[in-house]
């Protein structure tokens, strides 16, 4: 090992304050590889805000604004308005929320910004529970997953955020996965070229919440797509395209590798498999 890491070109991630094997950090690094230095980020309360650092030290090499929980897309809207007043056209404005800051607590400002067709990108990095506060259940937690406040597992399905965002009639909606970086980077490049609102939903596993080892973060994300639970697709001006054709491996291979599904019965596993068999190729985020 050496101490010669390339610190000049990394826009996010080096020295971050998160856990080892953090899926959110991987998502951030891959996205910033596409977005580049001319980018302003707003982040609500989330692991991603913590990762960014505290006090006067940050891992970000671009402007980074830690907003209140409810308002990252609203702050991003204001930043875009200020850039427009100044005639600055070559800056990407990105609000980057977790599943709570996007789908639940932060949803009102997200839906508002999408309705206004703001010139910005919103990213939902999805670890499927509220990990920054200890791993509680949220609307993006999948069916039957055990959380710290749901010892018996979640009783309802995950809210379909890509479908909700598509219903706003926005320019671009895409799902992405940290295990497929080329696909993720291509989607960010496409979103950055849009003049309207783009929404990218990234699967970013959290080993602590999911009950896996830190070195399994990327592998478990890959399994989610390969089994059909996390379809990779995009909706560009309403045109739907699947961007990766998976092998459709058994869903059980994905579920049983995680501690959060340790109580899953054979019947519940079969229910998952039947759902994928019936619905794969419809909307994303169906688990």
């Amino acid at each position: 090992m050496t101490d010669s890491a390339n610190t000049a070109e990394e826009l996010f991630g080096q020295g971050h304050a998160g856990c080892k094997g953090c899926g959110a950090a991987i998502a951030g690094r891959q996205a910033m590889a596409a977005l580049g230095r001319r980018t302003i980020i707003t982040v609500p309360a989330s692991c991603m805000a913590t990762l960014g650092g505290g006090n006067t030290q940050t891992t970000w090499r671009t402007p980074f604004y830690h907003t209140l929980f409810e308002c990252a897309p609203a702050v991003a809207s204001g930043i875009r308005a200020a850039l427009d007043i100044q005639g600055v056209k070559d800056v990407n404005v990105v609000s980057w929320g977790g599943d709570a800051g996007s789908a639940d607590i932060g949803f009102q400002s997200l839906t508002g910004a999408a309705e206004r067709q703001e010139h910005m990108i919103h990213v939902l990095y999805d670890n499927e529970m509220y990990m920054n506060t200890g791993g509680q259940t949220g609307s993006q937690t999948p069916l039957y997953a055990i959380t710290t406040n749901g010892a018996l597992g979640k009783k309802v399905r995950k809210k379909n955020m890509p479908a909700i965002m598509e219903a706003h009639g926005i320019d671009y909606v895409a799902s992405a996965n940290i295990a497929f970086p080329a696909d993720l980077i291509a989607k960010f490049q496409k979103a950055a070229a849009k003049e309207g609102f783009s929404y990218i939903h990234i699967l970013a596993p959290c080993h602590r919440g999911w009950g896996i080892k830190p070195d399994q973060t990327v592998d478990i994300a890959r399994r989610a797509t390969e089994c059909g639970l996390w379809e990779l697709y995009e909706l560009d001006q309403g045109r739907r395209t699947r961007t990766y054709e998976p092998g459709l491996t058994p869903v059980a291979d994905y579920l049983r590798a995680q501690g959060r599904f340790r109580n899953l019965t054979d019947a519940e596993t079969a229910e998952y498999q039947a759902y994928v068999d019936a619905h794969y190729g419809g909307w994303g985020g169906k688990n």
Partner: protein
Amino acid sequence: MAFKSVPVVPAGEAGALAAVADNRNQRLRRPEISDQTQIDPLTPLYCPDGAIALTAGRYAISERLCKGCGICAQESPGIRMVPEYTGPRGILN
């Protein structure tokens, strides 16, 4: 005061954590490159810590930035995890 005259002062040095981070005494394992030809080119993008760099055709891992998660070793057969510390443990050993 005109809008453009409002001073903008950075709250902190950009990327300052990259310069001060040192994870060497916080990990149990560290990656070791055993075969440069068996490293998946995507592996640097899988590293959460930006610790893997490709310079002049050779991969190098920063011992300061690496937290020892082991994702790189999972994704590339040319990287293996080795114990950070192999000496005696505790005051009785």
